[in-house]
């Protein structure tokens, strides 16, 4: 495959044509914060944490869905980006009810980690405190919409790794929800295979194994990585 050359933070980097800036950065050992990105499923640019500054563009572009181009000049960690990244994180915290102290994923949450990495010591926006549901109808798993950031990782693993198509997105704006089948209780789903990949993929405490208590949730991401590696590399590495 043809290679293109670009610079990331002033450093020359080469990447195969068709690669995303995120892939090029990862190959070059440059870390870009991500939240909705998940190895093994396609990217959607939903969370806006991987935003980049690209020379010649006024718009900030997401690294996960922006393709590399010859001569492209990309910045991943400028003052402006840090400002927007923190703002994005604060808005995520203000939008639903993320109460770390009583969350199953406390200490094991990608949202929480990204927040402190970005220096978020408080949220400047008023908390919305919406009234949201918790679906405890599935025998094995629970879904707490209070902690959901709508990254759609669960939807993408359900459709494209498990192939069940149980999880979906409904509604717009503040009414947007992850749903099961035709917006039914999870426990009544006829398509769910009980595989748990959505729970493994979730970056927060929105999807969890029933019975875990405060701070006890582990997402078993390695099980998902095992399947993705098997699929993509044809290697069954435990």
């Amino acid at each position, binding site marked *: 495959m043809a290679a293109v050359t670009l610079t990331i933070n002033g450093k020359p980097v080469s990447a195969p044509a068709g690669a995303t800036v995120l892939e090029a950065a990862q190959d070059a050992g440059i870390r870009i914060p991500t939240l909705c990105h998940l190895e093994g499923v396609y990217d959607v640019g939903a969370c806006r944490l991987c935003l980049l500054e690209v020379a010649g563009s006024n718009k900030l572009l997401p690294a996960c869905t922006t393709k590399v181009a010859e001569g492209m000049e990309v910045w991943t960690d400028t003052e402006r980006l840090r400002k927007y990244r923190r703002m994005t994180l604060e808005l995520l*915290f203000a939008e639903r*009810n993320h*109460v*770390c*102290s*009583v*969350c199953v994923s*406390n*200490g094991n949450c990608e949202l*929480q980690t990204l*927040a*402190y*990495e970005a*220096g*978020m*010591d*408080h*949220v400047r926006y*008023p*908390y919305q*405190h*919406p*009234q*949201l549901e918790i679906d405890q109808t599935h025998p094995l798993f629970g879904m707490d919409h*209070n902690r959901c950031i709508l990254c759609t990782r669960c939807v993408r693993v359900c459709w494209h790794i498990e192939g069940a198509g149980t999880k979906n997105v409904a509604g717009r704006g503040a009414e947007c929800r992850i749903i099961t089948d035709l917006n039914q209780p999870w426990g009544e789903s006829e398509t769910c295979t009980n595989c748990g990949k959505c729970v493994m993929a979730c970056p927060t405490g929105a999807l969890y194994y029933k019975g875990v208590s405060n*701070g006890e949730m582990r997402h078993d991401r390695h099980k998902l990585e095992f399947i993705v590696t098997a699929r993509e590399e044809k290697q069954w590495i435990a």
Partner: protein
Amino acid sequence: MDRLKLATVWLGGCSGCHMSFLDLDEFLVELAQRVEVVYSPLVDRKEYPEGVDVCLIEGAVANTDHVELLERIRRCTRVMVSFGDCAVTGNVTAMRNQLGPRNAELALKRAYVECAQEHPGIPHAEGIVPPLLSRVMPVHEVVPVEHYLPGCPPPADRIRAVLTALLEGRAPALEGAQLKFG
């Protein structure tokens, strides 16, 4: 020697942040030599005094007394620190906000009527029991604060880092995992 005038207050929280403060162990001895505790749930003083250098505020803003006290603290204090997750985010104290516009009434009913084993009834005593606000807020939504000390509770070493900086006249610079909520 002029010692730094330190105050701590306890608003809508569980006192866990104050317990974590006591967990400073031998640093408390050092602290006692360098500060004068002028107001705190741990000392017996009824009125928040003037001329306070540093005040640690535990708890979210949940009732009218909290608002009144915070306004006085702001007038009388040089450096205010939101101390712990309830002060910084509202945390568990603010979870009643999720119940909608009637949340205060519903929370009181749950605690004092539905769960009461004896003498159910919502306490009323004008001038003694302050009414709950219709929406619980973090401290900085009511008055501006200088610094944030997150954690539920903030671990003792995190409290020590902030106090040490303030004693040395520096701005505290918590970063990375020292800023973890929960």
